[in-house]
């Protein structure tokens, strides 16, 4: 009996030490990972404060620190681009949320003839590269005056119009709300509209915020569509196109604008990161829900 006890203790001791060792290894690994993930952000902030030159350099820590780049940045076209993008972000988040919610709600909770066909149709439609549509849209928009310096307006339309096709994640969310809620409300005499507005919407705060957040973030990262509608017009650029031209532009653009690009990167990242981090909880719910439902 005694013997048995001690061997158990021994075993638990060895398990404990083994556990401690694995934990240490894991901590070390996580710290390394964190450093790798953070270095680019630290780097971009440091670069944005570097004053001794405007081009790219081969060392990490700046030799002179100051706000020259930020001063130059606000004298450039950047504030205009920033405003363009902000405007697009706000407009897209509003309209896109309307489209996506109505589409996903209908497909998830209402049953009607042709529902499956509609879903298959959109699935197939989504397999075409969306950029292809831009060739015709550009032609029509340039007749309507919605390109070049008016490109932000054109882009809002482009981003929003077909956004109903991205219903998957929020449909996954609506699918998880019990059907009995609708039925109970219907028995009590509520119309379908009242079920939507008074029963389901109040329960859907996480997915509404998620959709708004996605809509707000989308214009900040779009290069492809924006480039095609804006062409080279300075007044109509969004931040992605404008800053891309600083880095990859012709001649010594990179040499003249690199540190300014970093400063602009910091300016763009701060508001978006604040919005994102404060709503992160909803984002995580959306992503995990979406992954579960596919």
């Amino acid at each position, binding site marked *: 009996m005694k013997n048995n006890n001690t061997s158990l203790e021994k075993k638990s001791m060895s398990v404990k030490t083994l556990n401690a060792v694995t934990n240490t290894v894991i901590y070390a*690994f996580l710290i390394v990972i964190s450093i790798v993930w953070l270095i680019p952000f630290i780097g971009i902030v440091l670069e944005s404060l570097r004053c001794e030159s405007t081009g790219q350099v081969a060392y990490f820590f700046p030799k002179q620190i100051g706000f020259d780049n930020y001063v130059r940045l606000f004298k450039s076209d950047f504030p205009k681009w920033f405003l363009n993008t902000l405007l697009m972000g706000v407009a897209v988040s509003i309209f896109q949320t309307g489209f996506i919610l109505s589409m996903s709600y209908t497909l998830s909770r209402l049953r009607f003839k042709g529902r499956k066909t509609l879903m298959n149709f959109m699935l197939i439609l989504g397999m075409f590269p969306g950029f292809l549509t831009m060739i015709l*849209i550009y032609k029509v928009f340039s007749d309507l005056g919605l390109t070049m310096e008016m490109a932000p307006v054109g882009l809002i339309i482009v981003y929003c119009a077909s956004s109903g096709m991205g219903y998957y994640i929020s449909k996954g969310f609506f*699918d998880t709300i019990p059907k009995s809620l609708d039925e109970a409300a219907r028995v009590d005499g509520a119309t379908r509209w009242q079920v939507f507005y008074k029963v389901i919407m109040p329960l859907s705060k996480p997915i509404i915020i998620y959709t708004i957040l996605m809509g707000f973030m989308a214009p900040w990262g779009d290069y492809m569509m924006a480039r095609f509608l804006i062409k080279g017009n300075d007044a109509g650029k969004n931040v992605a196109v404008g800053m891309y031209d600083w880095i990859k532009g012709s001649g010594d653009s990179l040499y003249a604008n690199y540190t300014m690009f970093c400063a602009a990167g910091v300016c*763009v990242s701060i508001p978006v990161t604040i919005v*994102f981090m404060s709503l992160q909880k909803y984002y995580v719910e959306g992503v*995990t829900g979406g992954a579960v439902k596919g």
Partner: protein
Amino acid sequence: MERLNALEYLKLSKSQALWYNIKLFFSKIPAWIKSLFVKLWITIKNFFLSLKEGALDIKDTFVKGNWAVKLSFVSFGAGNIYYGQVMRGLLFLLFEVIFIVYTFILPTGGIYWIRKVHWLSKGATVGTVQGAMKYNPVTDTYGWVAGDDSVRVLLYGLLSVFFVIAFFVVWRMQIKQCKINMELHGQGRKIKGAKDDLRSLIDEQFHKTLLTPSLLGIIVFTVLPIIYMVIIAFTNYDAEHDGHANLFSWVGFDNFNAFTDFGAGGLGLALGEMVGWTLMWAFFATFTNYFFGMFIAILINKKGIRFKKLWRTILVMTIAVPQFVSLLYVGQLFSQQGVIGAFLERADLLPQVMVAQNQMSLWSNPVSSKILLVVINLWVGVPYMMLSATGILMNIPADLYESSRVDGANSVQQFMKITLPYMLFVTGPSLLTSFVGNLNNFNIIYLLSGGGPTNTEIGTVGGQQLGHTDLLITFLFKVTTGSGSKYYLASVLGIFVFIFVAFLSLIVYNVMPSTKNEEDYS
């Protein structure tokens, strides 16, 4: 092949079982293809059956109907008005009047445009009047006299065809309503008026109210442009034949035939290169992210690890910062002047092969830039996977682990037998989504490598230099925006992307057990 039952299967050794499963997978392929064709056949058959049924139904309505119903075969809405649905009837009638005036009466109406397009007849131009510099005797100058604009002619022609189709759909719709009205009237029941119609839009017909704006947007901004661009694949629309200065014309299948050219600079060779790399990229990008993200999520989730929130927040930063900022910056880090690129050069860490060819940056060698893309994609994509994996891990029932521990399973066994199967089961569908997303992952490739380095063996294709890391989608973008604007080539490439994605999705949907039953979760 011979199927084993459960008992026989369990008798197999591990390697035999593996071999059996592989054989089983491949032996199923003919069955999938067969079932695909059967499905297709059934769909087509059902379509024609429903046409036949519809024709019978229309005939039936005509025979049984009174004079008003018979009248609505030529004059829309008569049947509706007769049975008291004045508003519907008038709307139908209005539609018919607009259609007839636009299509037949207006000088530049439907028929005019439809004729001008010369649908698909090889060699013919889209539009008839070529704009040209002409002498003007009044002002004694040469001036540009505008002709047709092919782009517009084709667009209006297409819209007019849509209008004709819509005409027949509406015709059928109102005849159907006549029949419903006849039946309701025969049973002595009340026929819905305008007020009921409006009320039902927020109740029985609520789906129509909700869907209309979205569907309208999708039809105008996606369906129509895509049909248009598919048609463009059969023309020679590019910067030289831009439609207004120079009409473009129909070329039949020439654009597709060009892809059978496998010589140097041939499109066939270029397509092969692109498809190969696109598949390879999507495969590595998806699976490295998947497993690495899951791995990190498991580490953070492990019991006894502290500051869980901090680790997650650090990783999530990459999602919050707009991708183009981080991608452009990280891409520059590895360039020859960048911090890491310059360090590699100074420390003599570049592979000898590259130095020998004077490729002094990781971006100038095909192999190293491909690897670098996958690695940087890891940096960008792992946080997403980490987040979703965390959510799923928390959902795995804890008692599974408890009981397996009692049975003496170690943590590796737990991972292989519980965590991994569960994750694969739950995230299977989203793996496909991210695979397709990676096939078309424009941002990462274009912002980091820009498709480069140039593929010197293939050289210039379609007026653009093909790069070693060009995906189909980035090359499509280059072809469209670059000099020469070869829209027809972009269109053909787009069709290839579609076929590619559709094919893969079909396979994957057939392979996966049908886990996606919608009603499962409610």
